[in-house]
C-alpha cells in the first residue's frame, strides 16, 4: 500500500505541536496534563503498534475519519437493523474489506454490534488486530470529540507525511487472558481480598477488555485517565456531575457496560 507524500505534508511531530498550540491558543483553560496526554496519544497513534506498522496505522486513522461520511454507513444507521443493508463502504484507503467493515461499523454504529457480526469479521482479522483497531479508534474519537467540543477543528491526519517509524510490529500476544463471556478474552487478574470486601473490581472489565494487546490498553488509558478516573480526579465538577455526563453519553452510544 503506497501513500504519496506531498511537499505540503507535515510530520507527526509538527502536527502534534500544532495540536498543543491550538489548545494553548483556544482561549479556554485546558489543563496541562490534558494537553500533554493528547499530544502523547496522538504521537503514539502514528507509531508502530503490536500488530500494525506505523504506516498501516496512519491508513487506519484515515479510514476511521472517512467512515463518518460513508453512504453505506449512513443507510445502515437509518435502517431498523444495520445487518439488513448490503453494499460497499466509501473508502479512503486500500485496506482489506474486512478491516474496512470493522473500522466503519465501530466508528459509526458501535451500539448495534452483535456477537454474530464480531465472529464474522474476525474470521479474517484476528482478535488482536481487532482490538488494536478498536483502541486506536477510541483514542481518535476522544481527540476529535474534545476538539469539536472546544470549538476547534480536529487534527488533520490527511496532511500527515509518511511516518518515519519503520519498526516491524512484534505481534506479541498476551497469554494471561481468560474467557469471561466477552467477545474477546479478558486480561486475567487475581481476585484480591480487597475486591471481595468492597464488592468493586480493582481492575474493571473495561480495562481488561483490550488485555490481549497490552500496548493498546496502555495507549488508551493514558488519554482516558486525563479526563476521567474512578478515584482522584482534579475537576471542578462533583462526582455525581461527572457520572451524570458519563452515563448520558453511554446511553447515547447504546452502551450496556
Amino acid at each position: 500500500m503506497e501513500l504519496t507524500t506531498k511537499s505540503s505534508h507535515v510530520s507527526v511531530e509538527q502536527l502534534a505541536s500544532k495540536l498543543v498550540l491550538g489548545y494553548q491558543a483556544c482561549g479556554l483553560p485546558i489543563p496541562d496534563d490534558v494537553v500533554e496526554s493528547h499530544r502523547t496519544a496522538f504521537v503514539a497513534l502514528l507509531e508502530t503498534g503490536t500488530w500494525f506498522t506505523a504506516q498501516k496505522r496512519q491508513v487506519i486513522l484515515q479510514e476511521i475519519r472517512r467512515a463518518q461520511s460513508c453512504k453505506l454507513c449512513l443507510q445502515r444507521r437509518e435502517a431498523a437493523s444495520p445487518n439488513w443493508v448490503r453494499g460497499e463502504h466509501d473508502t479512503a484507503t486500500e485496506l482489506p474489506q474486512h478491516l474496512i467493515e470493522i473500522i466503519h461499523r465501530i466508528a459509526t454504529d458501535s451500539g448495534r454490534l452483535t456477537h454474530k457480526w464480531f465472529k464474522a469479521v474476525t474470521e479474517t482479522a484476528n482478535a488482536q488486530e481487532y482490538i488494536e483497531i478498536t483502541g486506536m479508534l477510541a483514542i481518535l474519537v476522544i481527540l476529535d470529540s474534545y476538539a469539536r467540543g472546544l470549538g476547534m477543528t480536529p487534527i488533520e491526519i490527511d496532511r500527515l507525511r509518511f511516518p518515519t517509524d519503520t519498526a516491524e510490529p512484534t505481534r506479541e500476544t498476551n497469554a494471561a487472558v481468560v474467557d469471561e463471556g466477552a467477545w474477546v478474552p479478558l486480561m486475567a487478574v487475581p481476585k484480591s481480598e480487597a475486591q471481595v470486601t468492597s464488592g468493586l473490581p480493582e481492575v474493571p472489565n473495561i480495562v481488561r477488555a483490550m488485555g490481549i494487546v497490552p500496548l493498546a490498553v496502555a495507549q488508551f488509558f493514558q488519554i482516558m485517565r486525563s479526563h476521567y478516573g474512578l478515584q482522584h480526579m482534579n475537576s471542578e465538577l462533583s462526582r455525581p456531575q461527572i457520572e451524570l455526563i458519563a452515563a448520558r453519553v453511554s446511553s447515547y452510544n447504546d452502551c450496556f457496560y
Partner: protein
Amino acid sequence: MLLRESGEQQKLNLALDSITAEAANLGVENEAVLLKIAEAVFKSNPEEMARCRDEAITIIGVRATVDAIGVAAAFNGITKIANATGLPLDESTALSTRALRSDTGIDRFSEIWKSSQYD
C-alpha cells in the same frame, strides 16, 4: 452505574430511572446544562456545541465546562471499546444493578437484546 454510587456517597436521592429519558430530572446540580453538553459532544454539531458551551460557561464556569467536555469526549471513546468487545458487566455490578437496569431500560443495550433485534 457509578452515578448511583456517587449519589449515595454524597447522600443525594437521585431519580436514576430518568437517566435515559429525554428530559431527565435526577437531582444533580446544574444537570440540565451538563446533559446538554453530553448531547452536544455526542452529536458533534458545531453550532449546537457553540451555543451549549457559551451557556455552560455562564452557568457552571469555564473550567467546569472544559472538564465536562473532557468527560463527555472520554466516554464517547470508551463506549466504542465496550460495545465492540461485547463486554459483560463486572460480576458485582451486574448483581447490584439488576433492578436499576430494568427500570431505566438499559437492558435494551444488552447483547441478548441486540442480537434479537439486529441479527
